[in-house]
């Protein structure tokens, strides 16, 4: 079976959303529109068992402005929350972005830039808070590629209901 699913990356400015997608996918679609429209779309086809799933990744910029991103989140079928482990302000994204039916949408959370060990600011308290919103949390680095591919693939499995 061949299916496509819409997946949105959600995270504050400069947490590394674009870098993560770039790390995961070599062929980027139409960077040209991104500056005007504020979205960059990439796709990745993953084969899991007999299924072939097309993840349509929506890398949205500008979560600082509700009127801007709201349209783009419509109908999303998967979510990748991206936080920057060195930037505590980025942990608040869950409270800032409201998504209807959040609980029924498969999601993972990447705490990015885990290569920057000495600047790491994520503590148990913050982790506890994040767990209220999303149960799957991984530390990733778009720079070294650590945990990037595995995490995206894990979400793909969730999207197939596995």
């Amino acid at each position, binding site marked *: 079976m*061949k*299916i*496509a*699913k*819409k997946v949105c990356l959600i995270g504050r400015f400069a947490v590394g959303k674009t870098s993560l997608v770039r790390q995961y996918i070599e*062929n980027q*679609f*139409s960077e040209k*529109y991104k500056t*005007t*429209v*504020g*979205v960059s*779309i*990439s*796709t990745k086809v993953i084969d899991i068992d007999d299924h072939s799933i*097309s993840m*349509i990744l*929506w890398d949205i910029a500008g979560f600082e402005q509700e009127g801007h991103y709201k*349209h*783009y989140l*419509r*109908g*999303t*079928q998967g979510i990748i929350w991206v936080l920057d482990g060195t930037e505590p302000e980025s942990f608040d994204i869950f409270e800032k972005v409201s998504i209807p039916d959040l609980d029924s949408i498969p999601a993972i959370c990447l705490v990015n830039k885990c290569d920057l060990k000495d600047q790491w600011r994520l503590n148990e308290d913050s982790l506890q808070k994040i767990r209220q919103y999303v149960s799957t949390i991984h530390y990733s680095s778009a720079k070294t590629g650590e945990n990037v591919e595995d995490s995206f693939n894990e979400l793909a499995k969730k999207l197939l209901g596995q």
Partner: protein
Amino acid sequence: MTRERDVLKTLLIKEELEVLENLKKKLLSEEQFTEEVSKVLANALKRAQKKDSKLDIVLAKPIQDGVTKTFSENKQSIIDSLLPIMGQLIRKTVTNSIKQFVADINRTLELGFSAKALKWRWQSYKTGIPFAEIVFEKTIRYQVNEIFIIDNETGLLVQHVGKEETLKDKNAMSAMLTAIKDFVGDSLQSTDSGLMSADFGDSQILIATGPKVYLAMIVKGSPSERLKELNQKLIEEIHSNFSDSLLDTNNFQSIDGIEDFLRPYLVTKNITEEKKSINWVPWIIGLLLIISGLSYLAYKRHTEFNQAQNIVNSTPGLYLQELKKSGDGFVAKGLLDPDADVSQLKENNIQLETKPFISLDEEIIDLRINNILKPYSKVNYNLDHKTLSLTGYLPNDSYKSIFDRLNKVTGINSIRNTTKPDFSMEVEEFLLNYNNLEGVSYNIEPDKLTLNGSTKLATHNKLITDLKQQFPEVTIEDSQLDISDSTEKIISQIEKDSVVISDESESHSSELLSVIEQIKTLINRFPNSQITIIGESDCQGLNSDRFSQQRADSIKALLIENMIEESHLRTSITPCENFNNDVDDSKKIVRFKTYIEQ
């Protein structure tokens, strides 16, 4: 006017003939042709200007620029860019003769185009599409290369068909188109009911939006207006033919039949071969006038159209997909909720060609509720965030059926009900058919019945019993109902001061007879009642107490004579304490005292 028209015509044709002869040779490409036309236009207008000095001020430059700029583009852009100035031009110069002109031109065109033109004319006559539009249609070149059907919400691709599989990532393309479309958003859609277009490299993307999915068509060249209309029809058909499959995103890209349905729309439209044999003279005049004519009509239609569109858009429950002129009115196509109020549309000569759908507009939900509750004046309702609150009363006999109907209304999530059943109709009917209401009047409220007037105890008791049995939920208020023969009343009548004047005569006062009747009623009502007959005297003389006893005895005998059983009767006297010498007949009396045992 005819003269003016003739002069203008002569001017246009005669003066330009030589110029055009040269032109014909020079015309090698469309660009050159366009160049030349702009010069002709300038000339023609200059001449017209001699008659009306304002004309050149209004026209000269904008016409030159406008026509040159938009000529190679589609008809709509020509109209759009000329519209503001053309409206004025036409009103001032050619308004009255425009129709005649068009007729002349059509004739000229026919001659010029020979067989082919006749065929088009026939087509125009048969289809009702203006001849000028057919000319445009037949001479415009475009190629439909790809068609995307895309889910409005997720941006996921539902189906793609393409001439060649040129596009690498259709999924990304669909998502990107959706993002761009959302970004451009309301500004474009509001002007053109979901139709829009954008440039895409050397192609154009035409977009037609439906309620669930939209269509994006990638077209190379200059698509005609008709193609855009066709797209709107296409998206409607996709909704009606594949509606079930569109609901689940897992079906996307594998819906049966949708590809075959779309493929025929990948077409190439070429300019007809007649190009070479075209006689340019009528063409130039024709184009000029077609532009004028279309502009004028478009200008007129534009205002009417806007008005009609406003009316349609302000009709709750009507989802407009297309609005078209038809005769001297309009035809609105789209989706219509069966509960929508379309009286305003009919008044404004807007016909409907709609498919039914269920709208979730607040106003429509309200209308649905109102339709159900309209007959019931004692209920109030309020709809807030899809929660319906009901207060007041609803008729008892249709209480359940009303809620059954309300529960089926689409768009209500929950019902908060504090209404009470209203029994007034049933109570009223019951009382109207009740056979013994002697002296009773009443006032009916939804769950309360107030009784007034005056009636007999028996009537009262029966009525109350019957009402309570029939309407246990209704409060019955009878404190204002006077019971003319209540026990208290009877007793007080019997025990009234100095009931009987005892004069030992044989005839008895009517007062006494009435007391006898009362005693009978009382005994009847309370079979264990006891009546004490108390004799009294004026205490004149020593035998007074004996006389008192005699009075009591004689009345007792009278009562027995009147069919009152002795066992109920006792006698006694009020003994004298002092004796006097004054005779006072008014003190020779008998009193009654009652004892009732219930």
